[in-house]
């Protein structure tokens, strides 16, 4: 453990110390100071973000494979995702503000758990060894189980936590068995060593089984069919800001780790895993989008939509080329911000007798809050991948990657399913613009406005002028791309 190793870990060290301090604050008599909790969390996230950026300049000189005995990398890919996670958690902190004020639960513990979940995600996305990846994944998952059941006096929240916990723990066990078999075949837990070992192994049943189990565990985390059954119930039952967390930051973390493991360790795996994943991707897109059509609860609808989006993201992982890797980066960012914007709008409707969770609640929103109704339309178009928004850029990269890798049929299916998804996204638009609304105000508070406006600016700006994002994604994917023997090239 040298000073360089500490620098690699500095953002994680800061966030874990900070989250522990948040947990201690009620002990020293700050339990009632709810506003300070929010500000402490935001300041902590700001410091962490600055540290990530500072460290990224510091570590450029150090060979990544030597950091912490090769267990941890702070490459462009990790930094890109860490900044997405921190921004998303900051927005979720803002979304949680009013929501928590109405409840009687301790806000300090809530923010502390969000901090630990963030620490887990940041640790996981930097993981170069299956040990560090597993630990990060579990830290994120355990925090998420508690957060899903945070409103423990509400039966739905507790039930959601129970379902999430049981299925999550089983999937962790399956993932772990996969890791142990891969370790047994390759003799190492380091991703690069596994990649090297796999390039010499032709076929092996234990390896095949191990990769399948590992893939199943990861598919659970990103809610791909057939490992999606928990998603609608957990999304519906969890407190709405936590649903926002699960469907954005947590999901982007699953995309990132899936991409890292498959690009770095399993790129030479000559068995037909890409066909299996292609089937999972196709099933996720079809089932997610078709099931979303019939939902009347917005949270459940977005849950099925997020299952479909896991299918799209898988395109970038299956294709194993530079376009696909950049596609995963771009798509994660675009998806996170469009989704956070939608959750901000859903929360604006929430503070009324009828909840804001049903599609009917959006009726007449265009008259009650014209600007935010317009913002909602932009977010929905972005999720659907319609051109002037950022969602188009993300889908363009993923679909192009799939075509380049010879999965033309999958790209065609993805385009068709995007069209289907517009059907239920437009249901909300129709409700907002063409239906008479009820005579009720919307609770547009300042934090919700900030989140929705930021997401709107990002979604529109990157849709109209995506060059900086594309260049950044090319730059960020360079280190992994070089090791996965796919060379990112400029432009297309």
């Amino acid at each position, binding site marked *: 453990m040298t000073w360089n190793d500490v620098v690699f870990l500095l953002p994680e060290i800061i966030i874990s110390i900070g989250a522990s301090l948040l947990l201690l604050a009620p002990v020293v008599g700050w339990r009632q100071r709810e506003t300070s909790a929010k500000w402490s969390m935001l300041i902590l996230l700001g410091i962490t973000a600055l540290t990530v950026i500072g460290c990224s300049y510091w570590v450029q000189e150090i060979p990544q494979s030597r950091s912490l005995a090769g267990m941890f990398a702070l490459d462009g890919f990790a930094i890109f995702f860490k900044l997405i996670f921190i921004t998303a958690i900051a927005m979720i902190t803002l979304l949680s503000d009013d929501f928590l004020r109405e409840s009687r639960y301790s806000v300090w513990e809530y923010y502390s758990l969000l901090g630990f979940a963030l620490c887990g995600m940041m640790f996981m996305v930097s993981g170069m060894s299956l040990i560090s990846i*597993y630990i990060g994944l579990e830290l994120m998952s355990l925090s998420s189980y508690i957060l899903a059941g945070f409103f423990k006096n509400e039966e739905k929240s507790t039930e959601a936590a129970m379902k999430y*916990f*049981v299925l999550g723990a089983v999937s962790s066990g399956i993932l772990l068995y996969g890791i142990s078999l891969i370790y*047994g075949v390759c003799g190492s*837990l380091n991703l690069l060593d596994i990649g090297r070992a796999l390039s010499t192994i032709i076929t092996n049943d234990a390896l095949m089984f191990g990769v399948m189990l590992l893939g199943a565990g990861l598919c659970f985390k990103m809610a791909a069919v057939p490992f999606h059954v928990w998603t609608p*119930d957990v999304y519906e039952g969890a407190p709405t800001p936590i649903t926002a967390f699960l469907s954005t930051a947590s999901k982007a973390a699953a995309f990132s780790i899936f991409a890292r493991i498959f690009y770095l360790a399993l790129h030479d795996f000559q068995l037909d895993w890409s066909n299996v994943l292609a089937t999972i991707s196709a099933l996720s897109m079809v089932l997610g989008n078709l099931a979303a059509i019939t939902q009347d609860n917005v949270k459940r609808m977005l849950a099925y939509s997020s299952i479909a989006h896991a299918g799209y993201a898988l395109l970038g992982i299956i294709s194993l080329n530079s376009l696909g890797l950049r596609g995963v980066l771009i798509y994660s960012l675009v998806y996170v911000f469009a989704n956070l914007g939608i959750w901000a709008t859903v929360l604006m409707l929430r503070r009324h007798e009828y909840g804001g969770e049903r599609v009917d609640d959006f009726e007449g929103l265009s008259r009650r809050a014209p600007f935010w109704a317009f913002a909602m339309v932009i977010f929905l178009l972005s999720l659907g991948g319609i051109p002037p928004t950022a969602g188009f850029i993300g889908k363009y990269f993923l679909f192009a990657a799939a075509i380049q890798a010879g999965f033309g049929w999958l790209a065609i299916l993805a385009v068709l399913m995007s069209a289907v998804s517009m059907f239920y996204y437009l249901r909300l638009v129709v409700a907002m613009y063409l239906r008479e609304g009820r005579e009720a105000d919307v609770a547009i508070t300042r934090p919700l406005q900030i989140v929705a406006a930021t997401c709107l600016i990002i979604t529109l700006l990157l849709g109209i002028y995506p060059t900086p994002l594309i260049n950044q994604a090319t730059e960020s994917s360079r280190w992994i791309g070089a090791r996965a023997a796919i060379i990112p090239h400029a432009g297309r």
Partner: protein
Amino acid sequence: MIPTHWFLILSAILFAIGVCGVLTRKNGITIFMSIELMVNAVNLTFLAYARQFHQIHGLIFVFFVMAIAAAEAAVGLAIFISLFHHRATIDVDEANLMRW
């Protein structure tokens, strides 16, 4: 010395028993015990391989898995207690407020 594959067969059997327990049992605690069995079967696999390779990585992983399993137990039992407050039962089939 006992061959490695004997350990692997034993751990595969234990893992399969764990999976069967999760799939067939209704009581939350029994499901949880089955999950622990799965995790411990994995530990056995790691130890068997670590012994075969004369490596320390597998052994270290087992320690981390044990620590995480303990944390998981704390979270899981807390969630089941919370559920028991609402329902006076931890039968997972009774948790049907939302459609499965």
